[in-house]
C-alpha cells in the first residue's frame, strides 16, 4: 500500500521559510553582522535590546524568524546534496541531519524565548 507522502508539508515549510528569510534576514544581517560591528551605525544599547525582546510580540516574531528559515534550509540543503553531490545512498542520514537540525533549532529557539527574563 502507498504511504501518504509528507512532501507537501515539508515543501510548505520550505516555502514559508523562504519568504520569511527573503523578507527579514537581509536587514537583520546587515545591521547586526555589518553595520553595528563596523561602526557604520551606532549599535543599540543592551538595555534597549532587552526592552525589545521583552515586548510581547518579540517572542512569536523571533520564533518564526528562527524556525521557518531552518526548515527552508533543511529542504534546500537536502536537495543540494542530493542533486549536487549525488549522494543518494546517504539519504536517510542526510534527512535526519537536516530535518532533525531544524526541529532541534526550533526547540532551542522556543526554549530561549521562553527564558527571556
Amino acid at each position, binding site marked *: 500500500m502507498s504511504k501518504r507522502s509528507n512532501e507537501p508539508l515539508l515543501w510548505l515549510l520550505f516555502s514559508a521559510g523562504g519568504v520569511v*528569510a*527573503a523578507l527579514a*534576514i537581509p*536587514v*537583520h544581517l546587515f545591521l547586526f553582522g*555589518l553595520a553595528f560591528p*563596523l561602526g557604520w551605525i551606532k549599535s543599540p544599547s543592551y538595555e534597549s535590546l532587552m526592552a525589545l525582546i521583552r515586548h510581547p510580540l518579540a517572542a512569536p516574531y523571533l520564533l518564526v524568524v528562527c524556525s521557518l528559515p531552518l526548515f527552508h534550509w533543511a529542504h534546500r540543503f537536502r536537495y543540494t546534496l542530493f542533486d*549536487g553531490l549525488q549522494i543518494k545512498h546517504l539519504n536517510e542520514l542526510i534527512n535526519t541531519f537536516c530535518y532533525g537540525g531544524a526541529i532541534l533549532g526550533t526547540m532551542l*529557539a522556543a526554549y530561549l524565548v521562553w527564558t527571556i527574563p
Partner: protein
Amino acid sequence: MKPVAGYVPYPPRAFRTRVSTYWWLTSWPYLRFILREFSSVFVAWFVVLTLWQIASLIRGPAAYAGFLEWLRSPFLVALNAVSFLFVVFHAVTWFNLAPKAMAIRMGGKRAPALLITAPNYVAWLAVSAALAWIVLGE
C-alpha cells in the same frame, strides 16, 4: 492488486552515461542554480547567530559585550559579509521566481510577471524599513 505504474525499485540496467559530480561547474546557469540552493546554508548560519545573540542577551550585559566583541573579529565580519550577499541573492531569486510559482489569472490570461514581482519588492523594502526602525528605536 492493480499494478502500480511509475516507481520501480530495481530498474534494469540500461546504458546510462554517468553524470559527473561536478556537473554544476560546467555552465553558468547550473552554477547559479547551485549557488542559489547553497544560499540556504547562510540562512541557517543567520539563525545560529541569532539564537546565539538571544542566549547572550539573556545571560547578561557582560556576556552580550563578549558576543559583540566576537562579531567585530575580522573572520566574523568577512563571514557575515559573504552571508549578506548570499541572503540578498536568495531574496532576489525568490521574488523573481514568485510569478512562476503563483499562477494568478486576470481576464483569462496569466497576470504579467512584473505585477507579481513588484509587490514582493515593495514588501521587502517595507519590512526592511520597519525592522530597522524598530531595532534603531527612532
